[in-house]
């Protein structure tokens, strides 16, 4: 892995983001409903509407709108003003981003810690009851949409007065760590379940493949202990594919976060997005979409670097 490779990857990410801006812009530009009317209300005078349209550049052709939007981001880090909240988009999105990151990272770390050993265990105990139970669980996990998981968790673990967890809301960790912890459990579990199921299944199949490889057979035929065969020879070789799967699943996680935040009233990007969609708040929609796509692209790059560190064949390629 050379600098040239990294630079090429960064260029590719920029290209992806450019295409995303186009796509987002195209979609939002054809959104029905005149944004100025939506902001001012139906009884606004035509003059006021025209003035606001001018202020929002809505009277200009689409490429000028696109240009002023993109140049605002690139030159001033300015995503524009929220149409509804009369606040800069960066301010609306910034705090929400932090809250979402807390949730997503918690879920992702939990998934990584649990899914890899679980998948490896299933592969090692292939064909036994343990494998069957893990398999059953993972199939069920991938078939439950977030809103169903969330609803069932709420029914059983967050009943008013008797349930061990709050039904929703958010407490910042720097204000009350215990409160934060109890609030994050249900959303994180909901968000992580599908990923957990999917990643553990992929790890199982990777690990099974590695376990039946020539070099693991060779390691066994050297008389090495089963412990060493698994820990030194088999596991490291199935880690790189596991990282690849997790990084691809981050896209799924970023989608899931929208539903989960909505259900658990978690004040993150998802809620902001839903609110913006309902109110046709174009600058916010654009910023959130771009942000989510950017996170996904960057996390894929990070995972490629991690994979290169895990696999010497990639490292020097």
């Amino acid at each position, binding site marked *: 892995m050379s600098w040239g490779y990294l630079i090429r990857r960064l260029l590719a990410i920029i290209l992806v983001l450019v295409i995303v801006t186009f796509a987002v812009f195209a979609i939002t530009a054809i959104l029905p409903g005149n944004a100025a009317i939506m902001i001012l209300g139906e009884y606004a005078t035509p003059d006021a509407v025209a003035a606001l349209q001018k202020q929002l550049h809505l009277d200009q052709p689409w490429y000028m709108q696109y240009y002023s939007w993109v140049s605002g981001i690139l030159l001033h880090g300015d995503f524009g003003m929220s149409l509804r909240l009369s606040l800069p988009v960066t301010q609306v999105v910034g705090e929400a981003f932090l809250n979402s990151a807390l949730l997503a990272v918690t879920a992702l770390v939990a998934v990584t810690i649990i899914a890899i050993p679980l998948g490896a265990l299933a592969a090692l105990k292939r064909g036994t009851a343990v494998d069957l139970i893990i398999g059953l669980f993972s199939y069920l996990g991938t078939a439950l949409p977030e809103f169903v998981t969330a609803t069932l968790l709420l029914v059983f673990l967050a009943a008013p007065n008797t349930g061990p967890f709050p039904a929703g809301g958010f407490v910042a960790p720097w204000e009350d760590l215990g409160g934060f912890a109890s609030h994050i459990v249900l959303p994180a579990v909901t968000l992580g379940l599908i990923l957990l199921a999917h990643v553990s299944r992929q790890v199982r199949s990777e690990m099974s493949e590695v376990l039946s490889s020539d*070099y693991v*057979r060779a390691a066994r035929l*050297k008389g090495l202990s089963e412990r*060493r065969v698994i820990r030194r020879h088999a596991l490291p*070789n199935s880690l790189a594919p596991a990282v690849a799967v997790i990084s691809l699943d981050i896209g799924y996680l970023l989608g899931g976060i929208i539903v989960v935040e909505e259900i658990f009233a978690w004040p993150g990007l998802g809620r902001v997005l839903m609110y913006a969609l309902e109110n046709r708040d174009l600058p916010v929609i654009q910023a959130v979409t771009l942000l989510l796509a950017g996170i996904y692209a960057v996390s894929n790059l990070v995972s490629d670097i991690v994979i290169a560190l895990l696999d010497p064949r990639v490292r020097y390629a």
Partner: protein
Amino acid sequence: MTVSLAPVATDANSSTEKPALVIRNYSLSYRTDNGLVSALKNIDLTIGKGQTVGLVGESGSGKSSMAWSVMRYLPPNAVETGGAIRLAGEEMLDFSPRQMADIRGSRMSMVFQDPSTSLNPTIRIGEQIAEVLMRHRGLTKIEAYAYAEAALARTGITRPKEMLGRYPHEASGGEKQRVVIATAFACEPELIIFDEPTTALDILTARQILDLFNQLREETNVSALYISHDLGLVSRVVDEVSVIHKGVIVESGPVQDVFRRPKADYTRQLIGAVPNPDRWIGVDAPAVPETLVKLDDVGVRYGAPTKLQKLFWPKDSETTGFWGAKGVNIDIRKGELLGVVGESGSGKSTIAKVLAGLQDFEGRLEFAGKTFANRKDIDRAYRRRVQLVFQHPDASLNPRQRIGTIIGRPLKLYGVVPADKVAARVAELLEMVRLPADYAKRYPHQLSGGEKQRVAIARAFAAEPDLVICDEVTAALDVSVQAAVAELLVKLQKDTGTACVFITHDLNLIRQLAHRIAVMHHGKLVDFFDRPDARSDDRDAYTKALLDAVPVPEAAIA
């Protein structure tokens, strides 16, 4: 060359010690959906101390099952139905898995067919050798690495210390196999199983590994079971040989006796199938040499610079990419069989692709008065008259088409016969390649490897071409099938007068078939000669090395 490959004299008979390995009346089956399938039946085999025994068989003969049985490494669906396997007198069938783990790698070890898959890609080579020594010899890490370095040096690795720090993908195929051998010998085992250790290697590398095998055997007096499909090779390295066919050992004995006076029919058939360079089976050479196709200064560059690169970095554009073939001049005569020989990566398949119009090239390709300077110029007429047969019949036949459709396609495409005669012609073509006519209704997966290759050949000849290019067509087939396919080609050549370019790495085979032989090395044509001059002194040094590296079977000399 015969000297260093001669069997090492052993003291097996004079020794009173227990034999290294005794297998008595051993049988093995596999549980499958179709019930028990027998893999090994009543096997008897003895390897004396310091002795090397060859186990020779074609694919599916059970020779690999034998290796797994001895190593006690059987899949869960294996059922052992009796017998005994004794290592130095100890019954291994009674050993617990734990005891077996102690024996594997220390008293008994194994060298595998493909070193590129049997070494762990993410662990440095040093650790992969040292871990055996630490496990079985109880050495410390420092001691184990020092010992590993010595073991590597013994296998002829020039800079062993450097090699310890490398990953497998940073070593060549030959180096990797030396590492595997060093690991196998590390704990000075009583028995080593060699499972086709040279099959995945190039000719010259294979030869070096064989030499190494003989040298180490002499130095260590280890007992060995040498498993191979290659009779010629086995006859050069073993003392005794057992021939296995469909799970039964059909014949065993000292290697000279088995090859000179084979008793079993199967052994005779196997020996008959081994190509003997002195037995000519090809067609008569054309009386008047007449050029059919000519390659004029043909070159192929992989990863050639793009227009943009040429524009901005004109200096670099000369050096980017690499030449799969460069400056190749070959003429192919009407009705002849031209052999193209080389190791993998020599450019021989690149030439096949150029001839078949599958590869962009520089230079000129002349055919029947026309000159093509570019792959895209090549017209339908040329494509009809030059046909290609691929190495792997599994890959070259569309799995979703019936044999009749596959063979019938060129007939329809080129309008060789009227539409209503296609089925009849397909039947004729099947008969020509000695397949039953009702095979037309089958799908490729219902045929064996040899049968599939016959279908591919029938498809090539269906177009009634002037030239057929055979790219390693026998390489993926078993020995006995190889011989039959080669004979079939010769017969078709005799019947049709078609010229043939036969690309191969098998020098013994090509000397049976070809009128002229071209030798390629690193993308260049290094030698081009008439077959009778193969042993002439004017040959290129590389040609000589190749010829010397290939063992001519014992029986062939006798």
